[in-house]
């Protein structure tokens, strides 16, 4: 399919991140190093508050590490100014959110077109890209629907189309199935696996769901500010005995429309 270049897509070197709230130091990541090679599909698990979202935000350049360096797609993020980071993000990253984060006043087509408005593509080229992206996620017939006219699973697929429309090297997904019922979750996971396998997208997916994590090549477990390669079997065992302490944020009730 494709050859893995020597340079990993994501490279964390001795990264630490701490927040301060009312002079109280909140350490989140502690001296973390991590390589994610191109083409890999990685799941990140860990208890709530362990810093999974923070990790994604750091990789996206939305937040800066307290110490250490982060290199993404060959670019040391610490070298970029904020406005450069913004531009870089629009060119290299696709972001997928737990709550989809579509603009409610824009149609599926217009939502997917948004990132392309930052490029110099003509209107016709943009339309072609948007249609391709929507076809990949299987929603070309829902192009002119507004988010409120779509099911949660469909909304998330539109959001995925928006994330891939600029053909980024890296997809960052923060609990993409966290708000979906089982059927819709499987559809979204299938889609992510397909993007990884067919289009070679490197994917970092945060999830609380071991079944979702199993779809990845590799599972990283974040706990007390450090990573460890997780043994999925162990997690599943822990889950069945009800002792892993994880929670899902406001799970969505299964809805009949998705199953159809």
């Amino acid at each position, binding site marked *: 399919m494709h050859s893995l270049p020597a340079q990993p897509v994501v490279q964390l070197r001795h990264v630490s991140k701490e927040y301060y709230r009312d002079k109280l130091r909140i350490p989140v990541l502690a001296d973390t190093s991590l390589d994610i090679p191109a083409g890999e599909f990685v799941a990140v698990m860990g208890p709530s508050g362990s810093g999974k979202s923070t990790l994604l935000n750091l990789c996206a350049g939305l937040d800066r590490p307290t110490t250490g360096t982060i290199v993404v797609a060959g670019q040391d993020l610490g070298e970029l100014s904020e406005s450069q980071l913004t531009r870089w993000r*629009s060119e290299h990253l696709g972001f997928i959110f737990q709550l989809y984060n579509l603009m409610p006043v*824009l149609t599926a087509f217009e939502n997917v077109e948004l990132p392309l408005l*930052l490029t110099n593509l003509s209107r016709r080229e943009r339309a072609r890209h948007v249609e391709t992206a929507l076809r990949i996620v299987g929603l070309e017939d829902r192009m002119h629907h507004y988010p409120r006219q779509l099911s949660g699973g469909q909304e998330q697929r539109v959001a995925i189309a928006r994330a891939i429309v600029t053909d980024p090297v890296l997809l960052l997904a923060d609990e993409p199935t966290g708000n979906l019922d089982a059927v819709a979750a499987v559809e979204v996971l299938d889609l992510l696996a397909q993007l990884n396998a067919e289009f070679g997208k490197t994917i970092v997916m945060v999830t609380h769901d071991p079944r979702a994590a199993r779809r990845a090549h590799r599972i990283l477990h974040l706990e007390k500010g450090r990573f460890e390669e997780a043994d999925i079997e162990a997690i599943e065992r822990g889950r069945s005995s009800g002792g892993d302490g994880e929670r899902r944020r406001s799970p969505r009730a299964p809805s009949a429309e998705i199953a159809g």
Partner: protein
Amino acid sequence: MDKLGDGLRELVTGPDRWLNLGLLAGGFMVLALLTLAARALLRIPLKYTLRSLRARWVSSLMTLFGAALVVWASVLAFGLAAGLDHTLQVSSDPLDLLALRKGATAETSSIIEESLARQIATLPGIATNQRGQPLCSPELVVVVNKPRRTGGGHANVLVRGVTPVARELRPNFRLIAGRLPRTGLREAMTSPSMAGRFYGCRLGESLEVWGSQFRIVGLFTCGESAAESEVWTDLKVLGQTSKRPNLLSSVQLRAASPSAMAVLKDRLVNDEQFALKAVTEAEYFAEQAVAGLAIKIVGRIISFFLTIGACFAVANTMFGAVASRAREIGTLRALGFSRSNILAAFLIESLVLAMLGGLLGCLATLPLNGLSTGTANWQTFSEITFAFRFGPKVLLQGAALSVLMGLIGGMLPALRAVLMNTVEALREV
């Protein structure tokens, strides 16, 4: 609706049409250029802005109407001031002189012997008409109290006795209906706006002055000057009727040149034979315009405070918009839109809001265009008729006001959107 059409028609067919159209074209060009410049900043599509406004249509509409009301009231105030300015200035030829009794501040309180006027007419330096007659007009004014046609009550009307030369001193004089009053008869003429405002002033009606009936035989316009607030009749007849034979209120004359004007003025004021007060028309009306000044000042003050209020309304709506769309803003940032993109989008949003309101406010004033009203002239206590004038200047003032409201009201909320921490904005539910 008719009035609206008339207002629009006057904008494109009235005497100022080239200025109006020029300003409109210029405005559009500036707007087009600004749009091009804004395109760089405006990566976030306009439809996002417009539909977001529509999504919160209740608060958008309320703010829009608020802005419309403020612009409407301000444009009315500006239009009132402009109309008054126009009325008081339009007639003054820089070579025109008005001779009054020394110490008089208005024609109504001035008395001049008619014999004096005949002597003035012989002075050198007075311009002459084609027939060689000096442009020197003896005039007598009488104030009568007359019932208003609309709104009830009475108001003072200035009746002016003139000779034919008076018309030559008012180059804008046009007879538009009927005929001129004949010398020696109790006939009079007035303006259409007076005809509409006072009983007895329509063509064919009679106006009672000091117990005598003066038949209105003609209607005239005079470039919207103060003369349009008056009733004109024959000088001799008015003198007899009002029991002031051989007396005048003023003598109007036109100098042949600016230097002749200086000599004439000096002569009229300093020669013991005359010892009059001689002012240019501009000077005279400047003294008269106190009422206008008050209207202007009050209008400006009111529109200033209204505008501040409207800024707060816009700001309030936009703060609400920013707060409720925190996650959308965070998402846009995560997608790669820059801070200036966000700033532009929210500023445009408040501008659209305020400018739509401004447009509505300006449109709502059009039916009033040309509508005449009266204000008491505080020195003669007669009414000066004047029209709201919504020329391009006044409308531009209204437009500028709405842009200002949008920018000032939208700036802080837009800055708040820009300075929002992206990570925290994304955590908002």
